[in-house]
């Protein structure tokens, strides 16, 4: 349990819980911004002697995930008189408890999936927990913006896992992945903006016209 990486990963898990338990939209966006910052610091903590490749990844991740994307998300919901409350399908208490169960299960499952370097053991459960919690947020929150936040958390979880391979997958790949995430969220934000404008609300209950 020593070391900066484990502390950062614990803080990442805590930000997931903040998204699960908070009632305000802006608090959710701020929580993923912090998550992005922590994720950006992780490559430096894991590979302090990595060289310019690691520094580039840190800078790129912090720029995209902690600064640009949260600002963009805030812009997307700015326009209409949107009710800034989360309005979940599953209550806060149940969400928080589900989060604990997921974290426990992630730690249990990662026992069967050992890493080659045991020093990085906590990366696997942290990434799995973030992925599942992101998926949970995406499916149980009614607001379109929170679905984007859930997707962002899902991608953060995948990125976390990718950090076990920073030395083996070249920088180009990570940059390509980062770019794809960026463009994806960008397009989603544009669509959220349009949803906002069209329905004057972010409630995805409006998006149920198409059916068989």
């Amino acid at each position: 349990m020593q070391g900066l990486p484990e502390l950062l990963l614990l803080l990442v898990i805590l930000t997931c819980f903040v998204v699960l338990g908070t009632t305000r939209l802006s608090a959710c966006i701020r929580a993923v911004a912090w998550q992005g910052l922590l994720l950006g610091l992780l490559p430096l903590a894991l590979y302090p002697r990595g060289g310019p490749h690691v520094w580039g990844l840190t800078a790129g991740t912090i720029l995209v995930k902690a600064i640009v994307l949260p600002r963009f998300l805030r812009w997307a919901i700015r326009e209409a008189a949107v009710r800034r409350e989360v309005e979940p399908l599953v209550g806060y208490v149940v969400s928080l408890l589900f989060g604990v169960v997921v974290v426990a299960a992630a730690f249990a499952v990662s026992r069967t999936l050992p890493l080659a370097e045991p020093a990085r053991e906590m990366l696997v459960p942290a990434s799995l927990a973030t992925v599942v919690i992101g998926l949970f947020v995406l499916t149980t929150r009614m607001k379109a913006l929170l679905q984007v936040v859930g997707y962002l958390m899902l991608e953060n979880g995948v990125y976390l896992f990718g950090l076990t391979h920073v030395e083996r997958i070249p920088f180009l790949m990570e940059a390509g992945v980062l770019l794809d995430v960026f463009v994806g969220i960008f397009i989603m934000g544009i669509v959220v903006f349009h949803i906002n404008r069209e329905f004057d609300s972010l409630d995805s209950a409006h998006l149920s016209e198409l059916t068989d």
Partner: protein
Amino acid sequence: MSWSGIAAVAIVLFIAPLLPGLAAKTKARLTGRRGAPVHQLYWDLARLWRKGAVYSRTTTWIFRFAPVVLVLTGVLAALFLPLDGQRGVVTFSGDLVAFAYLLALGRFFVVLAALDTGSSFEGMGASREVTVAAFAEPALFLALVALVLATGRLSLTGILGAPLAHAWPAAAPALAMVAVSLFLVLLAEGSRVPVDDPATHLELTMIHEVMVLDHSGPDLALLLYGSALKLALVGALVVAVIAPRAALPPLVGLAVLVLGLMVVAGIIGVVESVMARLRLDRVPQFLTAASVLAALGVILMLVA
């Protein structure tokens, strides 16, 4: 039965009323007021003790008995905590459960006394108080379980003693989360903001204050003292987790405890001046967050 242990209990029992006063003073200073003197509660207790008590005709012996039970259970619970940093006055394996349930017993009787008055208002307050307690209990127990896992002992003396000091370097993040969780439980047990506002005068916003609404004279004095004592005991638990004092001589350990309690009271004052009381349906959320923190601590202890 060590002298230092008994002396520590006596000293904590003595300074308990100081803590709410410190919290109020800190809050007053931070909000730009001078505030009441720190030892105001002592004067209040003395004044109340001299007055006569008025009992409603609908109440029974429970109403008169409850304040005594609250103080008695508090004193008994104090015997289990290693307040001098070495040993509690009474220790046995599993006494942490006894500690938690003694505090719960005190609260149970206060709630019964409130129900005893037969007023719907106290009934409402009683149900709120019990709800808060129901959510705070798992958090407290999860925090204690995390400590048990960290140290491998099952008594309060064991989990707050030397093994805890050894466990800190390796398990720092988990223990930090446990400490934060215990602090949140302290806010709930002590009926502080953001769970309950002790300074409110609006009946519909009261939780704990409703319990004491009908008592008067010495009964009220005992109730006020009992709450302060509970604050001191859970606060001592928080201080013991953050600063294990087993390596220090008993007197120094006791001094550290007193200092720690004052710091905790100060932090409570800061929290009270920074936050507002939570909407009542958000309180379970708040306490679930405390449970989640403690649960994460448990998971990390199980894995490491």
